[in-house]
């Protein structure tokens, strides 16, 4: 629905010029060497379907410069990305999507697993994805659709997830993060340490939760468990009774006027927080950064029950083959080679291959974003705007602490259909 095709990187005019140049060059070189070299004149274009998270203009520009591959972004919301894969698998080449949607996408047969052997840095991918632990050896909570559960397929055209490592990878990991509640410390004025605070009557009419069922239900489950009302066997795969119970707790809070609003879109969450309509709510890391960059105090509060995590990665449409498939591999390899990873790290996300990202970041940046140390210099966003002044420390601290503190992952449950109905009921209550 909210879908725009952004042609980034180069304008049509410069593209025309450069392709004309290339064609001229090809023709010229052909004339000299006697080579009818058509391939070099064909522009390498990949249509890239995904949410806005990874789709930076700088990334596509750098990619064009380094590899000659022109990326055409097709931006959609998480739900719309999945819808598009289901209904129009030929409308994109490379897919950038979240692991939890694999439970829907893989059985449809509309995507092609990638070959791990052709991914140069595959062995350097963080163990978060392959083993479910941090590089420091901390075990990560695996409730929900944790990436390592759905990373491998049993065979090339298999629709079954493999429990052991195979060379057929569903999504080559790119970016992930650990989410928690955002708060306004200037208004709350006391320490917040538990998800249960979201339902604390103290914040009546000033709390919010996100209205995307498959993510919102996980936040709700974190809250219910934190209040001590119930302990789930697996928050990411609830039974019908557990869904009923979770929604009952949330519905009671809603009826009592606990929530100011629910949000659905990044900017809504920023507006609610910045305007003071809410003081505690589910939030995403860059939204917190955005509120802070408006000069308003906002903390991405680490909580004792842990984080709700998400991860996304690349695969290709089943319609991609021949040279296009080679470009897709070339692009994925480029993406993991450092520039993009550093770019994502600087936004507060995490990159899948840490070593290459580190090589592309200044040591003080790495220390701030990844090691949880106080910033030696001012921390700047990829576009050069000031994010944090020297001396500040990242909320939640280091990579080890944040990823090591993950309790669950965004999920598609077996009872998804039932859950969606109950979620509608919650909204209607």
């Amino acid at each position, binding site marked *: 629905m909210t879908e725009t095709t952004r042609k980034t990187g180069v304008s049509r005019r410069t593209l025309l010029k450069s392709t004309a140049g290339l064609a001229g060059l090809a023709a010229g070189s052909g004339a000299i060497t006697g080579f009818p070299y058509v391939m070099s004149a064909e522009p390498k274009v990949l249509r890239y379907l995904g949410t806005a998270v990874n789709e930076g203009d700088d990334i596509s520009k750098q990619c064009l410069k380094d590899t000659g591959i022109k990326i055409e972004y097709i931006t959609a919301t998480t*739900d*719309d990305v*999945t*819808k598009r894969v*289901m209904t129009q698998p030929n409308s994109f080449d490379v897919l950038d999507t979240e692991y939890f949607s694999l*439970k*829907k*996408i893989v*059985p*449809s047969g509309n995507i092609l697993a990638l070959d791990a052997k052709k991914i140069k840095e595959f062995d350097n991918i963080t163990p978060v994805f392959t083993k479910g632990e941090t590089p420091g050896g901390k075990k990560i909570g695996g409730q929900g659709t944790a990436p390592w559960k759905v990373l491998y397929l049993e065979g090339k055209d298999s629709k079954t997830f493999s429990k052991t490592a195979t060379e057929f990878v569903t999504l080559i990991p790119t970016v992930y993060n650990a989410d928690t509640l955002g708060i306004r410390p200037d208004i709350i004025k006391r320490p917040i340490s538990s998800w249960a605070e979201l339902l604390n009557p103290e914040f009546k*009419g000033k709390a*919010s939760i996100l*209205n995307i*069922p498959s993510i919102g239900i996980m936040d709700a489950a974190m809250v219910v468990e934190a209040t001590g009302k119930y302990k789930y066997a697996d928050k990411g795969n609830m039974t019908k009774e557990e869904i009923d119970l979770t929604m009952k707790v949330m519905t009671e809070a*809603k009826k009592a006027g606990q*929530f*100011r*609003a*629910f*949000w*659905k879109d990044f*900017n*809504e969450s920023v*507006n609610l927080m910045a*305007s*003071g*309509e809410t003081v505690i709510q589910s939030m995403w890391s860059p939204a917190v950064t955005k509120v802070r960059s408006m000069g308003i105090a906002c903390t991405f509060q680490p909580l004792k029950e842990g984080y709700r995590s998400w991860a996304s990665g690349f695969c290709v449409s089943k319609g991609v083959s021949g040279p296009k498939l080679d470009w897709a591999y070339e692009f994925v390899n480029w993406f993991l080679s450092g520039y993009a990873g550093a770019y994502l790290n600087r936004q507060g996300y995490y990159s899948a291959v840490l070593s290459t990202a580190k090589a592309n970041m200044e040591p003080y940046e790495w220390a701030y974003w990844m090691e949880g140390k106080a910033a030696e210099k001012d921390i700047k966003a990829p576009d050069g705007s000031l994010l944090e002044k020297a001396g500040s420390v990242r909320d939640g601290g280091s990579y080890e602490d944040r990823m090591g503190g993950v309790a669950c992952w965004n999920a*598609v449950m077996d009872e*998804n*259909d039932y859950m*969606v*109905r109950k*979620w*509608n*009921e919650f*909204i*209607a*209550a």
Partner: protein
Amino acid sequence: MDTSEDILQQPAPDLVRGSETARPAKAARLSPSFISWLQAGPMMLVFLAFFLIPLVFVVIVSFWDYNEYQLLPAFSGRGYTDTFEGCIAQLPDLCTIAKTYLKTLKLCFLVWAITLFIGFWVAYFLAFHVKSKTWQMGLSLLCTIPFWTSNVIRMIAWIPLLGRNGLVNSGLMKTGLIGQPIEWLLFSEFSVVLALVHLFTFFMVVPIFNSMIRIDKSLIEAAYDAGATGFQTLVNVIIPLAKPGIVIGSIFVITIVMGDFITIGVMGGQQIAAAGKIIETRVNALQFPAAAANAVILLVITFLIITMMSRIVDIKKEL
């Protein structure tokens, strides 16, 4: 469809004049009914291709089965039974779908009543008090101002006005009228109705104005001469003659509000259920048959309302 054909077949003064001037030149041999079909044809084809056929598909899909990732083209009433889940078991409490429709109908009624009231008087002013055609045009164009900005921007702009720390609240607090900010100004039924009225009054003004401007001024003079008071003239002359406009405007407003989920979502802080919202959630969860079933239910209910309204006024005849 048939309304438009009837209009064309009836000797409406403008059309007859138009076809008479055209006839001697070219279309002398074409029968009038053929010309009517020709005129209505393009619209009919557009309707067929982009409305009726998709609608048939929606109805068909609403009876299919589905799983997590695909439609299963086998007959199933699951889309409907799921929708009405708990409606009998939960009695006397209302089930989700009943609650949602009650809420949607309530919002719809409020918006309809308010837009009708405001729209009627705006149209009245434009038709009877503004004498110059230019001013009439200019002023009715002013009514379109709410449409100059995008939906999203318009919604976000309400926050600084109605929010907890917004203009209205801080103004009232400064004057000492209230001690604490009024919470129900935003993300409430009040704000939903306000935003919808703000948007859709225009759809009332235009058809009512259109009806009023066609009222023969000598009728009003006659009423005055016969000793009718202003109020009697309004009730016995103007309102009956403006009825077609009122009904058309009402149909516009009701159909739009019944299907709206964006405005209700944003202004209601996503906390107020709407019939359209259920469809959106289902589509996002890739449960297309369930979404289609809900769309069919919404269509039937809206259609019933419209039918009731056209019982009150025979639009075909009035036009």
